[in-house]
């Protein structure tokens, strides 16, 4: 598992080696830390969408503790910064679907176009490879051809889909899918939902309703509610995470499109302010462009180090 994790994340951020974080690594290869070093660091972190509040806090902590400890060698300060970044992500880490149960229900939510359906295909494949019996629920009954999209993916990765007609009640789809999962003794049910902006109050309430339907059928379901975030998103990702966490009870984040040139730096703010863990990263449009998240290798890879 570790091997896979490392390679995938490295692939996804390979380009960053030469760009932003690569430049951070270069910064630390010089001999002495100056005011300019700190300014440059600030700029580079902001350009990675880490966000000004997080950057300011992080740099202050690193500055203070390097002064306290009398660190002068750039590598030592770099390690401190890396540790600071890892801490922001790790405060809240939990094991995905921890514990044993007959049926695991995973609800997947997010704004329009963030990568939910594609991520579900990858997650289904991931479970299948680990020997799980997987079923999908096509609860995006709203977007044109969303059901077809999920069905094509399901066929590619070799799992079944429970679907109703376009426009059907998503709650009813989930209800049926859970019954089907129980009847077929599937042990993982992944629910695709329609993309929605977190500011749409009524649509957000619909997610709460879907969760409660699941909970009535299966003890403590959904067992994970994954928020799929597009890595190219900026500071709005924090608002998204806040609102989806509040109404849909998000338990973890999937960082999609990490194969883009963006760095996904907003996950640091999400960890810092909301304590939400990143559980998986998606790094392309193929079913195996997927890996469990690991904070240390994520930060290492961002610095262009294996």
């Amino acid at each position, binding site marked *: 598992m570790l091997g896979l994790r490392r390679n995938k994340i490295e692939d996804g951020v390979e*380009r960053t080696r030469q760009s932003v974080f690569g430049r951070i690594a270069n910064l630390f290869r010089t001999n002495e830390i100056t005011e300019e070093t700190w300014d440059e660091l600030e*700029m580079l972190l*902001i*350009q*990675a*969408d880490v*966000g*000004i509040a997080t950057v300011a806090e992080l740099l202050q902590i690193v500055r203070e503790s390097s002064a306290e400890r009398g660190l002068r060698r750039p590598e030592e300060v770099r390690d401190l910064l890396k540790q600071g970044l890892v801490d922001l992500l790790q405060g809240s880490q939990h094991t995905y679907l921890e514990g044993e149960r007959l049926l695991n229900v995973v609800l997947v939510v997010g*704004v*329009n*176009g*963030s*990568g939910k359906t594609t991520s579900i295909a990858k997650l289904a494949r991931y479970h299948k490879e680990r020997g799980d019996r997987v079923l999908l629920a096509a609860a995006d009954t*709203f*977007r*044109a*051809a*969303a059901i*077809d*999209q999920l*069905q*094509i*993916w399901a066929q*590619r990765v070799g799992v079944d889909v429970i679907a109703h007609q*376009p426009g059907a009640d998503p709650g009813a789809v989930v209800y049926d899918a859970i019954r089907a999962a129980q009847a077929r003794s599937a042990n993982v049910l992944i629910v695709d939902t329609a993309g929605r*902006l*977190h*500011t*749409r*109050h*009524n649509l957000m309430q619909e997610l709460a309703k879907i969760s409660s339907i699941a909970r009535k059928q299966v003890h403590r379901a959904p067992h994970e509610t994954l928020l799929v975030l*597009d890595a*190219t*998103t*900026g*500071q*709005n*990702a924090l*608002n*998204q995470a806040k609102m989806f966490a*509040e109404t849909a009870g998000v338990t973890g984040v999937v960082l999609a*499109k990490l*194969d*883009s*040139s*963006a760095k996904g*730096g*907003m996950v640091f703010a999400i960890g810092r302010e909301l304590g939400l863990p990143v559980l998986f990263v998606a790094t392309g*449009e193929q079913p195996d462009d997927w890996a469990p998240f690991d904070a240390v290798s994520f930060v290492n890879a961002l610095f262009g180090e294996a």
Partner: protein
Amino acid sequence: MFESLSDKVQEAFRKLSGKGRLSETDVKTGLRDVRLALLEADVNYRVVKDFTDRVAERAIGEGVIRSLTPAQMVIKIVHEELISLLGEPAKLDLGGTPPVVLMLVGLQGSGKTTMAAKLAVHLRKLGHRPLLVAADTYRPAAIQQLETLGRAIDITVHSEGDRVAPPRICRNGVDRARREGYTAVLLDTAGRLQIDDTMMSELESIRELTSPRECLLVVDSMTGQEAVAVAEEFNKRIGVTGLLLTKVDGDARGGAALSARSVTGVPIKFMGSGEKPTDLEPFYPDRLASRILGMGDMLTLIERAEATFDQKQAADLERKMRSSAFTLEDFIEQLHAVKSMGPLNDLLEMIPGMSQVTKQLPSDATERGLKTTEAIISSMTIQERRAPRIINASRRRRIARGSGTSVQEVNNLLRQFEQMQQMMKQLQSGRGMRGLMPRLR
């Protein structure tokens, strides 16, 4: 209009000028909050730097240093520069011999397909006969998505399945448009990363084969710092002619639009504000400027209200108000309508200056108030709702019990309602609702 940022900048300059005369460095320091506001709005770091440098230069040139009100002057310059950087709204270029070809490009998930359908509806309104071309052969069911949308809006979709190369499909689509008398062709291309060389070359061949009049880059308003790199590369490869900003119905500040605009120099042509094919809005530089600066967006609020309360409802309501027939029943109906506009706190945040206030409130305080009111009115009989006069002490106790509130809460509500009725009576003699609205600018 720019209350909260103004306050901050004012405070900064007040501190600086306390030391005596302002220096040029002081002006730059005073711009710190402007810089932070822009960065928070996802405007690219480089763009922010250029922008604040330009503002500082102008400010110094125009004598801010000697001014008695440096902060006001700076804010005015910031506003003007931002609007000028965002550029004038521009129409689609539909010139040349028909069919005119419009090509939509952008990252995965930015909203191209939905935008293509919206533009088709828009073009039809202008008297065009648009043809949509399904050129995304990569994403599963992308073609079906466009076909379904096409059926819903009754616009023809040209598709050849997913086995034909996209440049061919586009070329055939344009030929078909010419043959069959369509006057505009909208090419819905697959989403792609700007760093994917093969996929970017594909766009180049589509461009060569179809000579589009417009290459429109679809930019998600939630995009972060990378908007610059994306816009730069798409522009370099295929020559972008306009920007389309999507998902503006969310709460992203939309700095990406400024980034993309400033590196490409091409105008923002439209904004997408919802999932329906009619959710297409013209671009207003001053509104986007205040949104980017986090200054609230009264106009959006008013529009949302207008969308919620339809014309007929509004007229009914006005009639009732005039005749003093407005009852608690109408009141609860209004409450429901306001609630459907979204969480109250979100609405409050759109009002300049209110975002600070709502931060102080617990996140559900206003919602809670609404729920209490609703519960109380629901526990009243129809007679009571229509004629609150009859609600005596024993009725009040019953209502409180029924709604799980206290008699005092019931009293409060009735008092508020009475005040409201008073106010309406006054309105009848005055200039109507408008008179109560704060002046916008």
